[in-house]
């Protein structure tokens, strides 16, 4: 079995974010151990796990790190960061890079190093009032197409639909992609970080590649992240040379649909495949393959 999908939807009257996040973290730890053994050239780590006893005002969520075999220009393994924390009513996504050398002027006041000026934080408002919610956890250890995804939806509008965790292998570089999308109606609220082999720099994204509204509603594969890491880089000071980039592609169990506000929608296109919409930004997870 290469793919698992678990529905952890709840009535919500006595369920809080810390308990959901802690439950998800259990699945994440198991998957991550297996993924690290299988993808030994890159190592994932849960630097901070959800605090099960977090109060309503405590930050509760994850800090995930991925140490890649790719070296930075300074000669150290590149480190990708992703922070996803619910604090009060704000779910904040923070993508980052663990290697600051030899960045110039690239960090925030808190010392955080974003993958690009265009790929800073993203956040959405979250209700902490116990509510019924749909939540799904999925993962795969298919070689080369490993992923872990956690999607959470409080109601059917995009301002309460999120994909708090998406960890997947880039189909071009083989590096990990760390991504998340907050509950937000902004079409480009997603944040992703990976590392580009060709330009030797962090690679970031804030949206899935989706057709515009003039096109028919379509399920498009592969799911591609539009690269946005272009405003500055290792060459911030001046005259950065022209850079060449490869695309960022999610594993084949994902697709993009140009329809929002559809978490938990289920699609059965004519080829016989079946897809579940997760989050509010058009990401689809394949439930069933097209028959050969």
């Amino acid at each position, binding site marked *: *079995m290469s793919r698992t999908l678990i529905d952890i939807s709840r009535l919500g009257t006595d369920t809080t974010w810390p308990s959901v996040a802690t439950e998800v973290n259990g699945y994440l730890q198991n998957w991550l151990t297996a993924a690290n053994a299988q993808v030994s050239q890159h190592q994932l780590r849960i630097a901070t796990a959800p605090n099960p006893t977090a109060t309503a005002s405590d930050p509760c969520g994850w800090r995930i790190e991925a140490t890649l075999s790719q070296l930075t220009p300074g000669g150290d393994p590149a480190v990708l960061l992703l922070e996803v924390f619910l604090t009060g009513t704000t779910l904040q996504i923070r993508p980052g890079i663990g290697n600051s050398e030899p960045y110039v002027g690239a960090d925030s006041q808190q010392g955080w190093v974003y993958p690009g000026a265009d790929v800073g934080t993203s956040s959405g408002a979250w209700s902490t009032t116990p509510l019924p919610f749909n939540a799904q956890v999925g993962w795969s250890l298919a070689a080369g197409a490993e992923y872990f995804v956690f999607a959470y939806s409080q*109601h059917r509008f995009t301002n309460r639909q999120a994909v708090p965790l998406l960890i997947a292998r880039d189909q071009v570089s083989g590096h990990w992609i760390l991504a998340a999308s907050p509950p937000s109606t902004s079409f480009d609220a997603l944040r992703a970080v990976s590392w580009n082999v060709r330009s030797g720099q962090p690679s970031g994204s804030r949206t899935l590649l989706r057709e515009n509204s003039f096109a028919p509603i379509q399920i498009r594969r592969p799911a591609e992240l539009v690269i*946005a890491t272009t405003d500055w880089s290792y060459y911030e000071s001046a005259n950065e040379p022209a850079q060449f980039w490869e695309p960022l592609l999610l594993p084949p169990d994902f697709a993009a649909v140009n329809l929002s506000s559809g978490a938990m929608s289920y699609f*059965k296109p004519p080829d016989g495949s079946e897809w579940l919409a997760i989050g509010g930004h058009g990401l689809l997870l394949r439930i069933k393959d097209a028959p050969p």
Partner: protein
Amino acid sequence: MTYQVFCQSFAPGSWKWTGKDPAGVGLQLDAAFRSFAALVNALPDNASTPLSVVRSHSDATANRWGYTWQLGHPVEPAHLWFLSETTGAIPQGDTQSSSSAAFGSALASTFSNNTSNGGYGTYSDSSANSTGLAYVDSTLTGATAIGAILLIAQDTTPGQEFFCWALKTHGGNDELHRDSCHALYKSPGSTGWNSIAVFPRTSKQFYGQVVLHGYSGNRFGGLPSAIGSSITANGHQLRSGIALGHYDFVLQPQGLFDSPPPLIQLPAPLFIGSTSIRGASTHFGKVTRPDGVMLQLGQRSSERDVWLWVPAGTGHNQASPWSSALALSHWRECNELHFISGLPPQGLQLITGTADFIRHFPPMSAMGTRQHPQQGPLLSNNPGGGGGTGGGEGGTGGSPRPTAGLLWPRGV
């Protein structure tokens, strides 16, 4: 030498669009196109899609300039044209609002082969992108210092057929330049020729646009652009590997909704995007890499600039006066640009935009949930029935949902 890039220079003060000199811009372009058409028409796979010249510069009456090309097709042959807009005095475009040339299309079946319309014939049904181009040449007062370069890139490799011309001007005031390009290309899995024309938006040319034509199934028409959604709008990013979609009202009458043709892939050598900020030269930009050179076909523009990838070793076998484009002294090395390559899309499935409970099951409605392939089974008193949440082949078997505390959907 299947992929070739070559160019010709026209001296300031003497060249003009409307000239009928066989050595002039118009007829040199015509000759280059005819020679490309002869090569690709001879390929077996192009037997049903021959390219031909319907009108050329030499057919123009009065001050007209332009060409009409036929895209051969077994069902719907089509015409594309690029013409100066009136048969009267040439209104060269030197303001944002004036447009002096039109880019248009029609089905070949709507064509009346006559000498009206400045020699170009008439159509009973056509569409024009008349905002296409505000051009200038060295006959315009104040522009006599402007020289021109006609650049051709072509590929005659079966399956990758590509013909692209770009007219670049140099000298004089920067505001007088209107560098633009038009390309025909084939896309894997689709029958027929597709077209892309790129007209930059500049301070003196308001209507920057990319005009896309091609075949969705057997129907010719405009194609929806995925260019905007393929790049992030930060002003110095260009990319290739963009795949254009189809319109459902074009596919549905052909019965192609359930089996849409492959997306149209823009030609791989073209990088399209925005160069409104940072490193791009106004025009004549160049980026040198170990494995080739990127050349700016368009000019600095927020929508859209276009660059051409010329791999190392690319040459041409054209006789003089054609010469190597790389040998021109006008190119200026650029930095602070980002070139992103893409991969061809693997698959496209169309679905209805509204809930129909056959293809598209929305969540959180009683009917939708009952019919939902995943949620529906949970409503029955059949724990684990259907492996509702099991995830396709090799699912988890029974339902792993908690047995208590569930709100949605629940079976009572």
